[in-house]
């Protein structure tokens, strides 16, 4: 895999690449979204989806449908596809596929820990977890009282264990340091994933470094915006940024001292790829930023399919499907709550 991956890639990766490209072909198109946006009830949505790949997953649902059911079933389809691919994958693709789920794993850990902190029922929390980020002893997270215990009891068995080295403290858990933990973990995860992809080399490294850099930069912006006005110090804030990406290192220094959204904007507009994102927003606005980032991400993910013989397509497909499920969730919610005027607000067309 050193520049000659076209020679050998298909030996192990050809089948799955074909599979994933086939899956990609079944993503909903703009025409589908237009039809979905015109739906009057959730049953209409079900009916429309039954003509797509989601059909078999939704056909046995009884009629008063809920948004959660639709999302759950759609996620189930993604999970089934993921598991099928994982079963077929050989090294290093299988590791790569596993890396894709670590993000969900971090989110699940944070969800459960926060939930237990607020004394929610564990079972209820487990239902909310993303099925891709499940691991065996996830329910035991509720037992832990502080970070050290969390690590020693549960996470030491999971792939997340190495990422934890930075945030083991004996402090009791609270909302603030859970959030810091999430971001530290995420930082470590992204850096690790980035290193892993660089190690794979070839087109995978090239494409994934672009995608992961974007992800890291987006997280940096989000951390900055969210931490404005909190007690997080500038140094702490800077520690949460991942050590790669387009903004690293100079952009990070500037972001670390930002005090309001317009300063963030000022920093970001120095970077041509992000200029277009921020030029869509009016000054002082941060609501639409998420959507703008998602749109940019989808664009980049779609481009990953333009090249062959690399693993980026798997990452891109999973992300696109997740975006599609987010879209479906938004559309269903709008339809269910009779907010059809807002239906276009957060739908990101994929094709």
């Amino acid at each position, binding site marked *: 895999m050193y520049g000659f991956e076209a020679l050998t890639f298909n030996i192990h990766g050809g089948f799955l690449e074909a599979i994933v490209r086939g899956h990609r072909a079944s993503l909903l198109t703009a025409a589908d979204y237009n039809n979905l946006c015109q739906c009057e009830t959730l049953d209409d949505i079900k*009916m429309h989806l039954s003509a797509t790949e989601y059909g078999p997953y939704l056909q046995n649902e009884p009629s008063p449908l809920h948004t959660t059911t639709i999302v759950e079933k759609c996620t189930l389809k993604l999970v089934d596809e993921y598991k099928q691919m994982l079963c077929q994958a050989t090294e290093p693709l299988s590791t790569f596929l596993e890396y894709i789920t670590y993000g969900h794993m971090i989110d699940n850990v944070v969800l459960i820990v926060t939930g237990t902190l607020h004394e929610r029922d564990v079972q209820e929390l487990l239902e909310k977890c993303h099925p891709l980020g499940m691991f065996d002893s996830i*329910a*035991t997270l509720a037992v832990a009282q502080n970070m050290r215990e969390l690590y020693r009891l549960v996470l030491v068995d999971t792939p997340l264990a190495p990422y934890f080295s930075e945030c083991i403290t004996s402090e009791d858990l609270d909302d603030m340091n859970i959030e810091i933990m999430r971001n530290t973990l995420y930082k470590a995860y992204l850096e690790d994933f980035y290193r892993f992809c660089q190690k794979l080399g070839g087109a995978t490294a090239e494409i994934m470094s672009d995608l992961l850099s974007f992800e890291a930069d987006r997280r940096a912006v989000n951390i900055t915006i969210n931490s404005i006005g909190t007690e997080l110090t500038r140094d702490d804030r800077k520690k949460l940024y991942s050590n790669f990406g387009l903004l690293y290192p100079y952009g990070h220094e500037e972001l670390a001292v930002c005090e309001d959204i317009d300063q963030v904007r000022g920093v970001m507009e120095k970077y041509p790829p992000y200029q277009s994102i921020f030029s869509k927003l009016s000054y002082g606005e941060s609501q639409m930023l998420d959507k703008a980032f998602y749109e940019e991400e989808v664009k980049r993910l779609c481009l990953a399919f333009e090249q062959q013989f690399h693993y980026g397509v798997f990452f891109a497909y999973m992300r696109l499907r997740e975006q599609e499920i987010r879209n479906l969730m938004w559309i269903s919610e709008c339809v269910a709550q009779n907010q059809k005027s807002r239906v276009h607000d957060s739908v990101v067309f994929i094709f």
Partner: protein
Amino acid sequence: MEEFIGKLPAMDLMRSEQMTFVQFIIPVESAHRAVSYLGEVGLVQFRDLNAEKSPFQRTFVNQVKRCAEMSRKLRFFKDQVGKAGIKSPENPVVQPDVVLEEVEIQLVEHEHELTEMNSNSERLRQSYNELLEYKMVLQEAGSFLFSGKNHPVAEERELDETAYSNDYVETASLLEKEMRPGASEQSGLNYVSGIICQTKVLIFERMLFRATRGNMLFNQAPANEGIMDPVTSEMVEKVVFMVYFSGEQARKKIRKICEAFGANCYPVPDDITKQRQMTSEVLSRLSELEATLDAGIRHRNSALSSMSLHLPKWTNLVRREKAVYDTLNMLNFDVTKKCLVGEGWCPIFAKAKIQEVLQRATYDSNSQVGIIFHTMDAVESPPTFFRMNKFTNAYQEIVDAYGVARYQEANPAVYTVVTFPFLFAVMFGDWGHGICLLLGALVLIARESKLSNKKLGSFMEMLFGGRYVLLLMSLFSIYCGLIYNEFFSVPFHIFGRSAYKCRDTTCSDARSAGLIKYRDPYPFGVDPSWRGSRSELPFLNSLKMKMSILLGVTQMNLGIILSYFNARYFESSLDIRYQFVPQMIFLNSLFGYLSLLIVIKWCTGSQADLYHVMIYMFLSPTDDLGENQLFWGQRPLQILLLLLALIAVPWMLFPKPFILKRLHIERFQGRTYGVLGISEMDVEAEPDSARALQHHEDFNFSEVFVHQMIHSIEFVLGAVSNTASYLRLWALSLAHSELSTVFYEKVLLLAWGYDNAIIRLVGLAVFAFATAFILLMMETLSAFLHALRLHWVEFQNKFYHGDGYKFKPFSFALLNDDDE
């Protein structure tokens, strides 16, 4: 000639049924009935007039949704019936016609009833499981306790009603009784007992170990029975465990861990008498619950079996209704919104029937207004429709796999019925193997009625679908096998005695000097004496090679003749004059002549070298043929044929495009005098109809010319390469006979040479397997594929366009297939 062809009886399979484009204008009140009657007739293909509308913007979307919901319920019932293991009755009760609305109400009731029963039995099952688990824990944990009895430790019983999260009254009360203020908490050594899934034990133990920093003792024993999961109704293996620990903190943690792992904890009294008492109490409750559970299951089964009587009927009804509404959704409302307008294709012969059915629909629905049914013109080409029976169907499938015939084009399936099995047999000639195939085909045909209802595997389904192809293939291979005189590669003297005999009685020089002919030739097929002789292969090769060329030239000529019939049918004299005639001349002046030479050589027994004749016919046509002369006047004939072939090439290349161009210009000039405006008016009147599809006829000379050039080159080169391609008949036949010889001589005869029963048996087994798998399966497949290729490429490219589309009528009879 023309008259004779005109007088020939109509061949149904030769050309598609005459189709016509029809329009229905149906009053709303009788629409449903009319469409469902049409579905029973099954001879109308509706056009979707609402193609631009999404499914839920259509008129009958609610009914479609209702049907979908009902079929979901029916699937649920079917699933439940299947899970309960109730066999659906062979012949379901014949009910008077049911109405959709009634069925819908019944379905809702049944579903409600069934879900209630299910949740009841699930609840019961859950409490039953808990009791069962408790019983196991009591048994196993008791043994842990007694084994540890000699340690003088005051053990404390641990109650765990919080971990015991279920809130059923009967079990909860059971627990409360256990909450006596019994043992003291002096020593601080506590224990928790419970039960957990076997798969989780290891990680559970590890977690406990970590949480208590190793200060605990973990005992486990597998439960002796599996426990049925109430949701998935699968048996789950469980393990009873008992954890000893000390301290209040540890207990909290352990409880949380138990909860997280879904381990059910049950209290176990440390006193043996109490334990016995508990056990007996649990046992009695268990037996009670079992009785209730059984009664529940019986009740449910009876409900399900009564339901399963109606199930096929309901499923059928719902499926039909859904199809009817789907079809109604393809219709358009007219301006007044009182009528539905539908368009579609139907065969002309069905018009009377459709008319009658529509009248019946009007009458039955008490409609004031009749249904208007009339034919219209369509620009679009009609669909192709052949009326099939179960015999011709498989052959038509073979042709359709290449391409569906253009409307009214000559259908190669007519000839494929015979030529396909025959060409197969030429490659598969062995009457022993043929008999095996025949037996297989006969078995499939004999069990036809039974197998056609069953769902077969993909391989079996293919075999079953092609059973009549298989039948003819086997019959022809018996015939060809008799000609080749092959029976598992053993020659037989069936039709009399061999024409050859040895030179003397010892027959010692049979292999070296050969045999002498002493009587008339063997009456049918190859003389058995050829087998094993030195000249067997040269003889058979020459025979089969020449035969292949004869067969190929015949079939290609048939293809070109069919192109004549096509041209005649579509009244295109251009194609006859500038395509059919030169093609015929070209093929026959070269390869027709070769066939003639072969026949002459066979008849006269001449020694002429045909390769030489053919090659020097091109290289030096004027030279003397010498000893290769087969008949008088051969040289002038060859020169004539060569000239004809040379003329035929530009003949098929140039005139047609130029004539087309001239015709186009003439038509274009003539149009100024033609009728104006009619087509435009129609388009405005009915924008949705098929007539609106404008027919643009742009004439592009260079395109036409290039097209013609490609065709001519393809034909000229194809004449050579296709003829060569027919030699595969010889090659495969040779391969088949050689393979079977190898298996017969090198396996069976070799093993028979030993005087040992085991070796003979092994030899026989190997021979049987090789015959069955290699000769009967692999060789059949390869011969099939090659026959397929000869038909698709060599035969059909002479005349077949195959760019039509199939007639897909709206028919209830076809519904069952695609749904399941």
